[in-house]
Structure formats: C-alpha cells, structure tokens
C-alpha cells in the first residue's frame, strides 16, 4: 500500500526503506519524539519529505492531489479537534469536509456506540471531557469510511479497559471491511495483541519491522 524509499524529513526522520501492507493492522511504536507522528503526517501529505519519495499504490504521492489523497487516507491527530457545534455537527463535519454524502441519525448513533460514547447527538461538543472528545473524533473518522485510517495515539486519553474495548472494535471493523489501519500507539500490549505488522522507530530510523 505504502512504500517509502530513502525518505528523509529534516533531521527528524531518515527511512531507507519501508513498506506498509494493505488490509492489515500496522502499529507504529517508539519513544516520544522519535518521529512517529511525522511519519503519519508524511503519509497524509500534511508535510512533504525533504528527500526521497513515498509511493501510494505504486504512485509517487508527490504526484497525487493532496486533497484526494487525504480523503482516502484519513488522519486522526493525537489531540482531538472539536469544532463548534453539537456532537452531531462534529460527526458530520468529516463527511462535509470530504464532500461525501451525509448520513442519518441512526448511522450516527451506531458509530457513537462503536466508540463507546454515550451522549445525545444534540449535546454541545465543547462540554465533553478529554476522553469523550477523543472518542468523538475517532467516531468522525470511522464515519468517513476511508480506505486507510492513520490514527495517532487514538486512545491516549482513555483508561486501559475502554482503550482495549474500542481498539478491539476498531480492529474488528477494519478486518471486516477490508480496510488498512496504521496506528501510532504507546501501548506495547495493544501492538502485541492486534498488530499484523509492527514498525519500531527510534531517533527517526526504523529499528525493525515485524510481520506476522
């Protein structure tokens, strides 16, 4: 799905060769500041690599329109973004941004259920707690139904039990719908349990990559 060749980003990342398989769960692990988020931002084309090239389905991403790419390869940032409005507005805004057809409340409730967020759709999103905001932002991304999920620590603000439940549902959903999930995580347990593929990054370099 993604191939990285001699990719450098400033003095933050230096990856000789890396390939990320399609329809698999890939976990990116490593210390903070090692360049995990930078890797996701490169794949989502929020930044361009300073050297080398990244290929998406064998096309160099420098030749792909950024917006089209981002609509297929959706990224969830570590700090959840909450836009003004209700829970409903915040779920639908992803579809609006990506110019996809909107869905009905039933589908929205389904997604809220999946991310374990028990809040009415009309609740003001600004009043949610940190963990609830993270769940809401995750729900928004799931609703967009992209080919690839790029999740940057999607469960950092959640307690361990909830984290387990939500990630399990997410992994199940990814497998069922044949999607690709690339997730930065600090939890070794999650990486060990769910990943088909683990990329370990240290000081901007890929230390090792474990397949199944």
């Amino acid at each position: 799905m993604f191939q990285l060749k001699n990719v450098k980003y400033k003095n933050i990342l230096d990856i000789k060769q890396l390939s990320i398989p399609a329809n698999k769960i890939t976990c990116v692990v490593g210390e903070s500041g090692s360049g995990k988020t930078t890797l996701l931002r490169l794949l989502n084309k929020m930044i361009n690599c300073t050297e080398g090239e990244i290929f998406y389905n064998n096309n160099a991403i420098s030749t792909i329109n950024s917006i089209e790419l981002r609509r297929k390869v959706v990224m969830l940032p570590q700090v959840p973004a909450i836009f003004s409005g209700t829970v409903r507005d915040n779920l639908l805004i992803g579809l609006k941004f990506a110019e996809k057809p909107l869905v009905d409340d039933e589908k929205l409730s389904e997604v809220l259920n999946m991310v374990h967020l028990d809040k009415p759709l009309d609740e003001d999103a600004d009043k949610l707690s940190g963990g609830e905001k993270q769940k809401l932002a995750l729900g928004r991304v799931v609703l967009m139904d992209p080919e690839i999920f790029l999740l940057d620590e999607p469960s950092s603000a959640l307690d361990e039990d909830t984290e387990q439940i939500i990630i399990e549902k997410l992994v199940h959903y990814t497998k069922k719908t044949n999607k690709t999930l690339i997730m930065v995580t600090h939890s070794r347990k999650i990486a060990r349990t769910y990943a088909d593929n683990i990329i370990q990054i240290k000081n901007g370099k890929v230390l090792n990559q474990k397949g199944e």
Partner: protein
Amino acid sequence: MDKVINLQIWQIAAAYIFIIILLFIVKLRGIPREKEILISSTRMTLQLILTGYILVYLFQNIHPVFTIIVIGIMELFAIYNIFKRVKVKLSQKIKRIITISMVLGTTSSLLYFIVVVINLSPWYDPRYFIPIAGMLIGNSMTGISLGVSRLVDGMTAQKHLIESALMLGATPKMASKEIVNNAFDSAILPTINSMVGMGIVFLPGMMTGQILSGVSPVTAIEYQITIMLGILGSVTLTVILFVQLGYKTFFNEQQQLDIHNWEF
C-alpha cells in the same frame, strides 16, 4: 443661508488655550500623556496647514496628473499605515495581497462614484475627487486593518483545527471558512455600526462640515447618504478581496498549512 463665520486668529488661539487648560488638568491628575497630546496637536496643526495650502494650489491648477499623484500618495500612506497598525508579523505574500486589495477595492469604488453616481466633469476635479477619495481610502484602511488582524490571529490561534480539517480531506477554503467569515465581519462591523447610529447618535463629519460652511442640511444629507453608500461599498469590496485572497497565503500549492512564513 446664514453667512459663514470665518474664524479669526484669536478664535483659533482660544481653541489652543482650551488644550493648554486640558494639559494642565492632565498634569495635575498625574496622567503621563502630556507629550502625546502635545505632539498630536502639533502634528495635526502642521499637517492640516500644509494640506490646506496644497489643496488651494491644486484647486487653482486643475490637472489630471496632479489628482492621480494625490490619490497615489493617499494609497501609499494608507497601505503603509495598515502594515504599521497591525500588531502581528506579516509575510511578504500577505503584504502584497493587502496592497492589491486596497488599490483595486478603493479605486474601482471611487471610479464608480465619480463617473456614474456624481458624474463629475472633468472627472479629475480635485474639489470633489480628493475629499471623496480620502473618505473611501481612509475607511477601507480601517476596515482592512481589522480584517488583517483577525485573519492572522485566527489562523495562528486555530492552527490545530485548520490542520485537523485538512487531515480529513477539507480544501483550504473549507478549513479556513469560519476564520475568513469572522475576519470579514469584524472588518465591516464598524462601518455598519456607524451607519446605524448615523443622524441620531451623531452627525457625520462631512455633513457637519458642509452645514457649517453654509450648505443646506438637505443638500448635505444627500451627499452624506451617497458617500456612506460609497464607503460601505469600498470597505466591503476591499475586505472581500483581502480575505478571499489572503487566506490562500497561509497554504502552499500542496494544500498544506504553510507555517514556515509565520512565527508561532
């Protein structure tokens, strides 16, 4: 019509005495602003005397080149003033957009009002052209300054929301829509507010001036209405141009938020 009271030197001197009394009070209360009051009063006096004589010269020597030079100088000062007045750091790209919006927005409104509305002949008659240009350019300057501050502040403060929107596949236009709308609102709000209060809360400067110089209030009002519409048009056009072109300077051609030009 009553005849106009021409102010005598001693009458103007009395106005200055008023300021000297004011200075005395300010000093007595220990407010450290005597210097500013003195400097601003002196500057105002010198600038207006100079302008008065220049205008007399221009009115006696009517020539299109003179009129064009004057409006050119006005535009330059206005643009320089915007750069100075906005407290945030401006990139070269956004400075260029400010210049383009000011020049295009004000000159097109000005031409419309001079040629179509007032039907001035010759079009460069400085007695009409220069005061009208001054009012359009001055008000557009105030509007765009507010718009620039709001846009730059909004883009900086809400960087995270904009990036998050981009990550979801939003175009730069969608991602910055709210900030652009806010910038537009805050830029034209003063003009809207002044129109709402006009005639009831205060009498506008131009109308007051005309009435003081012996013109019938009805004529003065006709001019005031026309010029207010002109100001509203010019401010709106200038600010629309600015926000529509301005937000783009924050993004590069890869639709990435271009933070390298900005200091956070």
